[in-house]
């Protein structure tokens, strides 16, 4: 009896260890902080559209298209676009800096996603206003080599 309880306890301890290790992932707060460190201010919703599959079977390369609604003229353009993911080992994904020469504030890229999580984008306009949008992607097989 004692022996069996011990094994069970060991098993639980081992399981807890695994869970702790798995928890070393970014949180929504960290994703927000990662962006806030570069984009000062409070973002408002809108202007950004995030295109990504609802369910990604392979987290190694999830196609993502981010479009920011802007005329991209010398007077009004998107200065920077910050993309973060809140369930990866590190929250940051990429930062894009545009100029009026870009003509259109849209980028397509492929991201790694460790697990089902939200992708968050924040756009910084040339006058300093911030816009944000997010989108959840369900991931079947994680893509960070775990």
């Amino acid at each position, binding site marked *: 009896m004692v022996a069996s309880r011990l094994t069970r306890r060991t098993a639980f301890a081992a399981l807890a260890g695994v869970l702790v290790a798995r928890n070393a992932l970014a949180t929504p707060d960290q994703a927000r902080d990662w962006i806030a460190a570069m984009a000062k201010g409070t973002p408002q919703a809108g202007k950004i559209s995030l295109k990504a599959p609802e369910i990604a079977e392979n987290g190694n390369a999830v196609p993502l298209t981010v479009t920011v609604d802007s005329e991209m003229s010398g007077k009004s353009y998107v200065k920077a676009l910050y993309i973060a993911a809140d369930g990866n*080992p590190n929250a940051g994904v990429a930062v894009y800096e545009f100029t009026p020469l870009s003509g259109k504030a849209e980028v397509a890229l492929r991201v790694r996603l460790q697990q089902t999580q939200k992708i968050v984008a924040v756009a910084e306009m040339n006058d300093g206003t911030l816009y944000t949008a997010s989108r959840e992607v369900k991931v079947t097989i994680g893509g960070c080599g775990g």
Partner: protein
Amino acid sequence: MADDIKPRLRVPTNAKKGELVEVKTLITHPMETGQRKDADGKLVPRLIVNTLAVTYNGKPVLNAKLEPAVAANPYLSFFVKVEESGTLKFTWTDDNKQSWTAESKIEVA
């Protein structure tokens, strides 16, 4: 290994004045995240392409800062508004400060 790294571009050669041109790029690069362990259980050190700078006739168009969350063989597509003929120049830099460049000319009719 580093010899395998090769940038690829897809840029139209002709455009109309003021046209919005879609540009696609890919660089073959493993984008080692620093999270992965090798067969001996040791962490493989991080080695990613961390920046891509794009200029048109020397003027900046797009600067991308990439994190390990960008997939291997980083692909990127974006737009350029072309008003005049010129050269689109791409410069990728990785964690070892190694860099690769590629150029493509656009003829404006």
